[in-house]
C-alpha cells in the first residue's frame, strides 16, 4: 500500500518542483499533514502555542514543543523497533510488556541496592536493557527457528512479560531514588530534554546502520518475499533474531524513559497498550503492515504525531481517556487515504483525460502511478 514512489523521469522538472513532488509522494505525507493540522488546531486555541522560552539561569528551553519532544521519545523508540519488525512481515506485540519489565528491573535493582550514584544508574539501565534484549531474543528464536507466527509469539511474550514484571516487583509499584537515573527523563542537554537527545541519537544510529549498509535491503527483501530472499543468499534466521532483539532493546530503553520521569514503575500500567501506539506510529508513517518497504522517517513522524495528539487532547480539556477515539479517527482516515479505492478516486480527478480510466479500481488496472503489490 505504501511503497515509496519510484522516480518518474518522464518530464524534466525544475529542482524545486521536483523536490515538492517527491515530498508529496512520500508515504508519510498524510502524517505530516495531520501533524500540521493538529498544530494549527492548537494555535487556534492558543496563538502562543509554539512559543519556546529560555530559562535565563539554567538555559533550559521550555514550552509545549519541548514537552511534545519529551513525550515522543519513548514512542519513537518502540516505533523504530516496530518498523524493523513489521518490515520483515512480523509484528511485536510485546513491546509494552517489555517496557514494564525493563522499568521493573531497573527500579527493583536501584531500590534494593540503594545506590544513588551514576554507576548505580548505569548498572540498572544496563541490567534492564539486557533483560529486554533476552525477551526480544526469545521472540526472535521462536519466530525464526521454531517458525511460529510473530503475532502469536509476541502475544505470548506480551502476556508472560506483564506477568514477569509483576513477579519481579511482587505485584507492587516499586519506586527508587537515584538522581542520575532521574536525570535521563527530566534533565536537559543544551536546553533540550535528555530523553529526546538520546532518542534522536539512537534513531540516527539505527538509521545509519540500516540505510548505509545492506541490512535495510535484506530486511526489506525478507519482508517482500522470504523465499526469494533465501534463494538470493540472505540468511533470514540471523536477521530475524537481531530485528526482534533490537525491538526488545529499544522497548527496554523506552521503559527506562517512561519510568525514570516518575522514578516509579506501575507494573499494571507502564507501557500498557504502548504496542498499539507503536503500531499506529508505524502505520501512520506509511509502512505497510504486510512487510517489505519501510520508512524510519515516517515512523518518527508518526511518533511525533501521536505525542502531539496526546498533548492536544489534554490541551483542549478533553478527558485523556477519550484519546483512543481520536487515534482511531487518525488511523481510519489515514488508512482510507492510503487505500486503492480512495486513491483511484483522487487519480481520476487529477487526470480526467486519461483514456479508459477505470471507474472501479480493478486489481489488474495497469495505470497505476505507484508500484504496488497486488494483494487480494
Amino acid at each position, binding site marked *: *500500500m505504501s511503497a515509496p514512489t519510484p522516480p518518474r523521469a518522464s518530464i524534466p522538472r525544475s529542482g524545486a518542483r521536483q523536490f515538492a513532488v517527491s515530498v508529496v509522494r512520500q508515504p508519510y505525507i498524510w502524517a505530516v499533514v495531520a501533524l500540521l493540522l493538529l498544530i494549527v488546531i492548537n494555535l487556534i486555541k492558543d496563538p502562543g502555542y509554539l512559543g519556546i522560552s529560555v530559562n535565563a539561569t539554567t538555559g533550559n528551553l521550555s514550552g509545549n514543543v519541548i514537552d511534545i519532544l519529551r513525550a515522543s521519545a519513548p514512542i519513537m523508540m518502540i516505533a523504530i523497533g516496530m518498523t524493523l519488525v513489521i518490515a520483515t512481515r512480523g*509484528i511485536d506485540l510485546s513491546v509494552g510488556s517489555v517496557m514494564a519489565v525493563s522499568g521493573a528491573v531497573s527500579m527493583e535493582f536501584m531500590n534494593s541496592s540503594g545506590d544513588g550514584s551514576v554507576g548505580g544508574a548505569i548498572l540498572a539501565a544496563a541490567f534492564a536493557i539486557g533483560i529486554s534484549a533476552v525477551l526480544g531474543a526469545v521472540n526472535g528464536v521462536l519466530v525464526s527457528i*521454531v*517458525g*511460529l*507466527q510473530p*503475532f*502469536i*509469539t509476541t*502475544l*505470548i*511474550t*506480551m*502476556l*508472560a512479560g*506483564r*506477568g*514477569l514484571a*509483576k*513477579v519481579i516487583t*511482587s*505485584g507492587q509499584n516499586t519506586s527508587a531514588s537515584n538522581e542520575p537515573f532521574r536525570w535521563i527523563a527530566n534533565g536537559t542537554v543544551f536546553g533540550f530534554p535528555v530523553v529526546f537527545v538520546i532518542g534522536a541519537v539512537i534513531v540516527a544510529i539505527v538509521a545509519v546502520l540500516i540505510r548505509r549498509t545492506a541490512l535495510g535491503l535484506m530486511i526489506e527483501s525478507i519482508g517482500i518475499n522470504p523465499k526469494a530472499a533465501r534463494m538470493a543468499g540472505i540468511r533470514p534466521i540471523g536477521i530475524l533474531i537481531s530485528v526482534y532483539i533490537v525491538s526488545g532493546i529499544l522497548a527496554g530503553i523506552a521503559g527506562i524513559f517512561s519510568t525514570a520521569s516518575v522514578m516509579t514503575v506501575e*507494573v499494571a500500567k507502564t507501557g500498557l497498550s504502548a504496542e*498499539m501506539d507503536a*503500531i*499506529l506510529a508505524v*502505520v501512520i508513517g506509511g509502512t505497510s*503492515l*504486510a512487510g517489505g518497504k519501510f520508512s524510519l522517517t515516517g515512523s518518527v513522524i508518526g511518533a511525533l504525531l501521536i505525542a502531539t495528539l496526546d498533548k492536544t487532547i489534554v490541551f483542549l480539556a478533553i*478527558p485523556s*481517556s*477519550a*484519546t*483512543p*477515539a*481520536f*487515534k*482511531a*479517527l487518525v*488511523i*481510519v482516515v489515514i*488508512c*482510507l487515504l492510503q*487505500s*486503492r*479505492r*480512495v486513491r483511484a478516486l483522487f487519480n481520476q480527478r487529477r487526470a480526467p483525460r486519461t483514456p479508459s480510466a477505470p471507474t472501479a479500481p480493478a486489481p489488474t488496472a495497469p495505470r497505476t502511478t505507484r508500484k504496488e503489490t497486488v*494483494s*487480494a
Partner: protein
Amino acid sequence: MSTLIERPLSGPSGSPAPARPTPLSRLKPKLETLPTLAAVVIFIGMIVYGEIAYGRIVQFSTVSNLLINNSYLIILAVGLTFVILTGGVDLSVGAVIAISSLVGVMLANQGWNPIAVVVLMILIGSAFGLASGILIQFFNVQPFIATLAMMFLARGLAAMLSTTPERLADDSPIRSLSTEWKVIDGPKINDLVITPTVLIAAVVVIVAFVVLHRTRLGRTVYAIGGSEQSALLMGLPVVRTKLLIYVISGTLAGLAAVVYTSKLGIAQNITGVGWELDAIAAVIIGGTLLTGGAGFVLGSVVGALVLGLMNVLITRDGSIPPEATTIITGGILLVFVLLQRLVVSRKRKT
C-alpha cells in the same frame, strides 16, 4: 488408498518436489484434530489434578460457577473462531463490550425498556463489526489495523460517556438474565445451578456449530481460511462472507456485553481490557489455526473452559502468586502453538 494411486501420476508432471506418500498421510484427518484433542486431554488432566490436589473440583457448584463465570468468554471465543478461521483477527471485542455495556446500563437506568436496551446493546456490537468489515473488505485495510481502530474508537467513545463505574439498578429486569435456577438441589450449597446466560452461551455454541459444519456459510468460512484466492476463483461469496464474519464477531461481543452486564451489574469504560487476548487464547488452545482454515468451534469452548479452570485452580492453590497468572496463560498458549506448529509441519511433509 486413492492417494497412493494418484501420486505417481501427478508426480512427474512438473511439480518441483513430488511428495512421497508416507505412513503419516493416513493420519492426516487425525492430525487436524490433534490440538483440539490435546486441549480436551489437558482439560481433563486439570480436573483430575485439581480433584486430587485440592479436592471439591468435580462437584456441582464448581461446574456451575465455571460455566456461569465464563459464559461471556465462551460467547466471545465463538465469535473469534469465525474470524480466525478466515485468517483474520478481531481485536475490538473487549472494547465493544465496554461501550455496549456502558450504553446499556446508562439507558436502562434512564428507564428505557429493558428489551430495547438489550437489542440496542447487541446492535452496537454489530455496528462496530460492520465498520471493521467494511474497512477490511472495501478499503483493503488489514484486519489487525481495522479492528485495532474499532477498539480505540469503542474505548474512546466509552470514556467520553463515562469514566466512572455505572451501576445497574438492583431491580433492573436485565439482571434477571443472571437469575440462578437450581437444576439439581445438592447437599448444602452444592447445587447444580444454571442461569439464562449459560443457556444463551449454549445456544450460541450450538448455532455456531451448525452454521460452521452444516451450512454453505460455514464451508465458505473454511474455504476462505484455506485460501482466499481459491475461494474467490471457485465463485464463493467471499466479500459477503468476510463482511458477515466481522458482523457476527461484533454481534456476539454485544451479546457477551449483555451477559456480562447482567451478571455483574456494573459497567465501566475500562471493562474488558485484554479480553480479546483471552478470547484469542481460548480459540488457539481449542485448536484453531491462526492462519485460518482449520479448527472447531467446540474446541474454542474447551479452550475457554481451560482458561477458566486454570483461574479456579490458581485461586484454590493459593501458593501461586496471582501475578503469575498471565505467565501461566502464556506458557499454556506457547505449548499449544508449538503443538500446532508440529501439526502444520507434519501436514506439509505429507
